[in-house]
């Protein structure tokens, strides 16, 4: 059987800003595709990953994208906000699928404005909403003081409008505390945070800056249990801070961690153990690895649906249609059940909160979505700005 392979362009930043995640994330993606191939592909179609480093540079992204497209790739994942943002227009013109899980433009959730772009997982807005909701249900939000300590970049500031919206609804106070990029030094910011005496702290950064944030919070006498992190907080950060010291810190979680879920245990058995993993076996099951697996699980599911309803050979528009047919897909329990529609490319904005227990991330809430109206308003506002030319 010689059915033509389905190609995905995983053109990511392995060497610059996203090094903290790309290695594990991309390994998870490749391993999952290997697993699918080992299991016979989808309807006999094999998956092929075109992996290139872009160094977070738009120009290298453009070249890698054009080349991969010529090689026949119909889905792209850049795992780099600048590259994704720079290529959104091109992707839509070329009618191929761009997935932007946990990066890129949040407003791409608006499927009608961004027909070929799929955030697939909870945007930063939804993440903030889920975290806020968790705080509300555990200790209440009313009258609390919330500090958003964030890297001083568009990404760091992104949750602010949503938090302000929720603050209005729930009657609490929120204030932003920016620290300069790359975040390896934040002491002045945290002195200010301590003076503010927050009840709840959100930390919104990535990479080394995250562990510095946690350390600084603890050094300033902030209870680890009141620290809530964006999705970028993993085992490595816990080891940096000190596994014990970090106990109690919470994070948003888009995908379950560990090797227990069926998919990951099959990867271990059929990919890792035979030595076919794309990287270090020790990474398997880590937070970022599993996120990578989940993104590909969604993509492969979309391809399966597209093949089923539209038939081979697949192309961009067919794959897009496949994505929009995804309904209640949870990757065999790895992730919240998502439903993608032509209007909602985020899949509902589901996630949960997990807490570091000294050795692992332990879920402390169910998969949920929160404040959909507030998030939706933000999405629409930004999407309208984009449609208007921005």
């Amino acid at each position: 059987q010689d059915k033509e392979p389905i190609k995905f362009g995983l053109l990511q930043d392995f060497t610059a800003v996203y090094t903290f995640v790309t290695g594990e994330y991309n390994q998870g993606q490749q391993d999952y595709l290997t697993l699918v191939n080992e299991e016979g592909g989808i309807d006999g179609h094999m998956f092929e990953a075109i992996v290139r480093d872009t160094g977070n540079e738009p120009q290298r992204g453009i070249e890698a994208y054009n080349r991969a497209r010529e090689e026949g790739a119909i889905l792209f994942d850049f795992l780099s906000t600048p590259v994704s943002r720079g290529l959104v227009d091109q992707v839509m013109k070329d009618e191929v699928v761009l997935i932007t899980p946990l990066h890129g433009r949040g407003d791409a959730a608006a499927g009608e404005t961004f027909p070929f772009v799929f955030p697939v997982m909870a945007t930063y807005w939804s993440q903030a909403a889920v975290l806020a909701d968790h705080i509300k249900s555990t200790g209440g939000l009313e009258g609390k003081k919330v500090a958003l300590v964030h890297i001083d970049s568009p990404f760091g500031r992104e949750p602010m409008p949503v938090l302000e919206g929720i603050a209005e609804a729930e009657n609490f106070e929120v204030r932003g505390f920016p620290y300069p990029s790359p975040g390896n030094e934040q002491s002045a910011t945290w002195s200010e945070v301590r003076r503010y005496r927050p009840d709840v702290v959100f930390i919104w950064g990535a990479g080394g800056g995250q562990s510095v944030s946690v350390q600084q919070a603890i050094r300033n006498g902030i209870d680890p249990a009141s620290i809530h992190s964006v999705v970028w907080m993993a085992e490595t950060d816990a080891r940096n801070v000190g596994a014990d010291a970090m106990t109690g810190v919470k994070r948003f979680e888009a995908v379950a961690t560990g090797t227990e879920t069926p998919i990951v245990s099959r990867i271990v058995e059929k990919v890792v153990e035979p030595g076919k993993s794309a990287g270090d076996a020790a990474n398997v099951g880590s937070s970022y690895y599993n996120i990578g697996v989940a993104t590909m699980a969604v993509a492969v599911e979309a391809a399966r649906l597209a093949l089923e309803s539209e038939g081979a050979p697949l192309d961009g528009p067919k794959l897009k249609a496949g994505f929009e047919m995804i309904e209640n897909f949870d990757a065999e329990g790895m992730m919240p059940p998502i439903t993608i529609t032509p209007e909602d490319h985020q899949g509902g904005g589901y996630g949960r909160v997990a807490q570091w227990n000294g050795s692992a991330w332990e879920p402390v809430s169910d998969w949920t979505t929160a404040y959909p109206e507030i998030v939706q308003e933000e999405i629409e506002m930004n999407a309208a700005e984009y449609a208007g030319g921005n």
Partner: protein
Amino acid sequence: MAYFIELLVNGALVGLMYALAALGFVLIYKSAGVPNLAQGALVMMAAYLVWYLGSLGLPIWIAIAVGAALMFGFGLLVERLLLRRMVGQPVIMVVMLTLGMEILLRGLIPGVFGAAPKPLDLGIGLAPVIVADVFMNRAYLIGGLVAVLLIAASMLFFRTRLGTKLRAVSDDHVASWAVGLSVERAIGLSWGIAGIAAVGAGVLWGSVQGVDWTLSTLLFPAIAVVILGGVDSIKGVLVGGLAVGILGSVIPGYLDAMVGGSTRDVVTSVIILLTILVRPHGIFGREDIERI
């Protein structure tokens, strides 16, 4: 008031941490006349080395000692393989060489040892040191002490005969040869010492932020320190470090809330610009003797 003092104290400590990274730069400049843009990469490399040695099971202190020895050797090697062939070339070429080296190391080290951040635990602990309501960062406190010690040691070193010889070499290579100084050995030595200083910076910063390539970006605050203090002055590292740290802590401490963005880099940039406008050679830097 306590807030102000806290900003001041922590700023000073941060400044000393930067000074630690800046020290290597000044050591090389002072004794070889080379602005070493790869100093940040050396700091990163040192941190990776110590992490790697630790992950082999060596106790941290031994790992640091071995790391220092290796970095010293690496400094000698850099001179032997690269700088020796650049003698007599214009400075901009040498600068470019160090830039090439920075790119090379930025690829090589994370490429070989892994790009994801590595933990480096010095056992410093996270509990704050609280003196009269002022919270001090314990890691920075120790880093500041180490910085002061290393700076003092370097100052003493340059008072010795060997130190004088290194300064002579940075002044004029050909004249140094003519009186029998081995320029090669002097430059190698200065790179070696800068390698050791990089271990200090790499280990302390690595323990705070984790070990990954971003350690090499310490070059920029380090350069701000150096410009303010004077590129060839060890005293300048100390004073420049304190000034950059304190100004970069106190001013944003009040300004950030008003502006709604983080102003530290702006403050640092303005410090650099003002220094250059008002006193181009920094506080203690030597002026070029130019006779017309």
